[in-house]
């Protein structure tokens, strides 16, 4: 096709673009995926029976603060990498804050617990399944974010994939909290983070393939 004709054709469809469309589109993809993950937790895994009581306790909010702050940091990076001129990732270091805070809590916990119970506290009841469940719950959210990216323009595909995977993992962990009864900081720091990192790894592996445009 002749370039002038192409321009005429493209210019026949110029809807106004609202501000913050990138952020909104990412939010829609994320929430749509999270609904699927949430439904899966409710139906297949079951909401923890003591959820009402747990929501008045410290452990529940410690877990949510950790996963939600990681999710926010990862989403900020995802939104940045969704633009072609993404530039430097200035806020990457913010991710370290929730990790360090949780690690600090973990140390505090260990000090207050007799060493004989450390292993039980670290492994909890569900260390074998926790990371895999977080990873599985991340997949619908990751797919939602892939949908978001269909109109966006990432140019660093591996980094964008990793950021999207990380966001999906952290948000999946947030959803998983309504099922998971674990209470110790070192459990969350290890096994939740492992699941979240696995999701980021999947994102980094698939990014270059799935995010091309």
């Amino acid at each position, binding site marked *: 096709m002749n370039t002038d004709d192409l321009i*005429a054709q493209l210019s026949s469809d*110029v809807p*106004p*673009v609202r501000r913050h469309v990138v952020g909104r589109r990412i939010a829609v993809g994320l929430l749509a995926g999270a609904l699927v993950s949430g439904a899966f937790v409710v139906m297949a895994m079951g909401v923890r029976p003591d959820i009402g009581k747990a929501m008045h306790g410290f452990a529940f909010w410690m877990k949510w603060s950790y996963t939600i702050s990681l999710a926010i940091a990862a989403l900020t990076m995802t939104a940045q990498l969704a633009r*072609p*001129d993404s530039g*430097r990732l200035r806020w990457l270091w913010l991710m370290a804050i929730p990790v360090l805070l949780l690690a600090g809590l973990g140390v505090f916990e260990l000090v207050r617990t007799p060493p004989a119970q450390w292993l039980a506290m670290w492994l909890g009841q569900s260390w074998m399944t926790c990371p895999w469940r977080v990873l599985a719950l991340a997949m619908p959210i990751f797919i939602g974010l892939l949908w978001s990216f269909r109109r966006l323009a990432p*140019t*660093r595909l591996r980094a964008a994939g990793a950021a999207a995977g990380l966001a999906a993992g952290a948000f999946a962990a947030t959803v998983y909290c309504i099922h998971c009864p674990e209470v110790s900081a070192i459990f969350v720091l290890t096994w939740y983070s492992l699941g979240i990192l696995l999701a980021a790894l999947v994102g980094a592996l698939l990014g270059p393939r799935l995010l091309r445009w």
Partner: protein
Amino acid sequence: MRADEDELRGLMISGLDGNAGDHAALLRLLVPILRGYYRRRASGGDDEIEDLVQETLIAVHTRRVTYDRNRAFTGWLFAIARYKMIDNFRRGRRLQPIDGLEDELVADGFEESSSARIDVDDLLGTLPDKQARMIRATRIEGLSIAEAAAAGGLGESDVKISVHRGIKALITRIQGGGR
């Protein structure tokens, strides 16, 4: 005469507000800019270059929501142009890079480049703003002198002088071990 950053940016923003005429005007102005950009970097027939130009115009159109009104338009445009060119090389189309494909690909490696970029940013931060911007445009983003001049709204000789003085100052600083 080539369109400059302010003009292109104005048309882009007007297009984002739904003005189809300005959007068309923008795309028409981009054609010679993109042709020049690709001819300088890829060897291939006019047809292949034109395919790439068209692909980029389509991308500029379909991905226009990703333009941030507060940032430079040419930065956004050339990021898309560069991405489309690398994608084209990777798919093994008939276009061949003239030289420096490795440079283009290496710039994709995110960790190395981001840590290197931090050093570069620190160094460039010690220079006057104009010198830093022009070094960034010509030596890091890989624009030609003419493109950088258009993007910065400067004369070409001004760009050359800024880059030259800036690099000289950097050399002095590095050799002197910094301030």
